[in-house]
């Protein structure tokens, strides 16, 4: 059996190794990053069958929880690890041709630390340890947003830094309150003891935690940083931030609400917030003319949809939300990665400048169309099945509130299709001429193609995927218990 801790220490160790060897390896340090990511994909794939049988509990420093820190890897941890490391590997391959300049080793160090933070947040079984990995994830994304050193990137990074820091302070206060009231930091132990805390303090902990994590998860009204940050980051980083970073924060909120705090009475409020997030995101995306801002606002909309599915208080809803996460990771990564080379080749962020670009960059344009169709939920792409299951799960609850919400969600989809199809129409315009523009290089296209395969072939392995997401969903709805963990 492989040890899940490798998923954290391999990228972290490689980040230190890059810092050690950067002075003589120069830009070849990217191959070290590649090795680390391949190792991560391998470990996470080996992990999945093992945890489906029985969750793995890893004790650190030989001290049994609640005294020490542990990693708790159930289906949730394994599925997300695969998502993070596979998406990370493909985006890394894309970065090889996309990132230029002398100090690339800094980019790859930050890249690996972002991966470390995401894995750590998903795998840890300790509340304070979660905060530490959250900080690693957040700080590396602040730096990566401003990595190119352009004016708007730095502005976005500072904005993100300020909001993100307020969020982390709130999480820290929540963790302190948890330790004061429950006397433990272990998640399973906390789930046992949380019910004994005074209700007003319980609510306070919940509010602080959700608000703090909600900044990173881009839930309305805490998401004002996202359009700037995701649109001015390098496109590879936008793909990561939209592809799995916000989803990691979201799944942590969901996991805490269901299986640790067990305060499902908040879910009605969350689903209202989710639908507002969705509508705000889609309406704002409709008004944009900058391609990356369209994609960034569309991510807000998608986060709303995922949160809506996950706050239905049913296993079906969670299952649908997880499928939607997989769909969003694959399709939004495609869109951001294609947009990256559209911008590099034309030198413009404006959609109107891409008139007729499909003639010059046919492969990229094709991938873009696939990504859009899957995001919209057109059959037979993977997005169709995930969106359908969200709608079905909501209608199955039978409540009037959810039915109304479903109509609003579908309204959001209509707006989404208007602005996305408009972009495609411009790209495939016959009269347009973008001048001498070359197709993107082979390696990035290969990485994008791999994401496309997930979307196109997803429905062939649908029963397997729903099998895995189903067990993640049943792990989340079950309250964590110390006795189950050990």
């Amino acid at each position, binding site marked *: 059996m492989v*040890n899940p*801790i490798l998923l954290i*220490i391999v990228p*972290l*160790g490689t*980040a*230190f*190794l*890059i*810092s*050690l*060897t*950067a*002075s003589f390896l120069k830009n070849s340090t990217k191959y070290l990053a590649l090795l680390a990511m391949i190792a991560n994909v391998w470990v996470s794939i080996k992990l999945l069958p093992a945890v489906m049988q029985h969750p793995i509990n*890893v*004790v*650190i*420093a*030989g*001290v049994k929880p*609640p*005294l*020490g*820190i542990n990693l708790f890897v159930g289906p949730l941890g394994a599925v997300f690890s695969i998502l993070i490391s596979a998406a990370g590997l493909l985006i890394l391959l894309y970065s090889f041709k996309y990132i230029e300049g002398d*100090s690339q080793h*800094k980019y790859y*160090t*930050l890249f690996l*630390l972002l991966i*470390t933070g995401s894995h*750590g947040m998903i795998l840890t079984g300790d509340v*304070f*340890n979660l905060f*530490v*990995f959250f*900080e*690693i994830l957040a*700080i*590396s994304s*602040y*730096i990566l947003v*401003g*990595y190119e*050193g352009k004016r708007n990137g*730095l502005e976005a990074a500072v904005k993100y830094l300020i909001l993100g820091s307020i969020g982390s302070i709130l999480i820290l*206060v929540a963790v*302190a*309150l948890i330790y*004061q*009231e*429950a*006397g*433990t*930091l272990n998640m399973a132990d906390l789930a046992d*003891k949380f019910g004994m805390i005074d209700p*007003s*303090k319980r609510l*306070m902990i919940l509010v602080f935690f959700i608000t703090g994590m909600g900044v990173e998860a881009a839930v309305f009204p805490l998401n004002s940083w996202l359009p700037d940050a995701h649109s001015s980051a390098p496109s590879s980083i936008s793909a990561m931030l939209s592809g799995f970073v916000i989803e990691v924060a979201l799944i942590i909120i969901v996991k805490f609400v269901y299986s640790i705090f067990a305060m499902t009475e908040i879910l009605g409020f969350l689903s209202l917030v989710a639908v507002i997030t969705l509508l705000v995101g889609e309406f704002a995306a409709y008004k944009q003319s900058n391609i990356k801002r369209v994609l960034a606002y569309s991510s807000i909309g998608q986060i709303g949809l995922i949160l809506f599915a996950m706050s239905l208080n049913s296993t079906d809803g969670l299952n649908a939300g997880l499928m939607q996460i997989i769909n969003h990771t694959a399709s939004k990564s495609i869109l951001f990665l294609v947009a990256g080379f559209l911008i590099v080749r034309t030198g413009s962020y404006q959609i109107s400048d891409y008139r007729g670009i499909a003639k010059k960059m046919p492969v990229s344009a094709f991938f873009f169309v696939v990504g859009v169709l899957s995001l919209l939920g057109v059959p037979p792409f993977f997005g169709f099945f995930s969106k359908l299951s969200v709608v079905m799960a909501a209608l199955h609850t039978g409540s009037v509130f959810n039915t109304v919400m479903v109509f609003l969600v579908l309204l959001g989809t209509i707006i989404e299709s208007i602005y996305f199809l408009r972009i495609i129409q411009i790209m495939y315009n016959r009269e347009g001429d973008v001048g001498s523009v070359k197709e993107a290089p082979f390696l990035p296209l290969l990485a994008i193609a791999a994401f496309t395969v997930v979307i196109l072939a997803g429905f062939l392995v649908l029963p397997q995927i729903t099998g895995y997401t189903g067990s993640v969903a049943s792990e989340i709805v079950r309250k964590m218990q110390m006795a189950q963990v050990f």
Partner: protein
Amino acid sequence: MRKVISFLLLAGFVFYFATLTGGLIIPDSSADRNSVGLDILSRSAGETGSANAVTSVVVLYRGFDTLGEVTVLFLAALGVSVFMKSTGEKRKKVLDQSFILKTGSRLLFPLMFLFGMYIIAHGHLSPGGGFPGGVIIATGFFVILLTSESVNFNKTLMSVLEGLAGLSFIGLGVVGLLGPGNSFLQNFLPLGEFNTVFSAGIIPLIYAVVGIKVGAELSSVVYAMKESK
């Protein structure tokens, strides 16, 4: 009017916050719930061999957090170096420091360095350890950097040290993983004689690498800020 309303809202929030979190500052009678802290206090000396219970928590019981905190600092230093790109050219002399200041700082530097080393090496015996020790060493560099116009500061050496210290931290952890305890950061060395310098297994080693890392990182942060535009 708006000011009054926002003041009232703020005051209400502060009051609510204070009543709820008051226990954080003045502990209430929830000592019975705080079993983890008491447990560690009673067990740490025997289990870890460290005379300083705080150190045993920082390095062993919650050593994984410390690895994360070291990484956060590493990230912060990296962020400074990404955003404050060195201009490459020598800065014009801004202030001509007096002879006394320059000589005094050179005289002070070895003492600060030695004191930092002492704090790091005795982290498991007395208050202190890798973080404060590293900061003291870095302060020694600050003094030199601030008082003299041109310093031969080896940036490459610093980044090599950072990387090496980080790798050694993980390496020490991995040895524990491969050893009989089969657990990351397991204390695999003999505990030695209680309350002596050579005791507590891997705790002093981890604190040493933390000290090197903190010292190297903070020094390069100050250097990057001094050299930037």
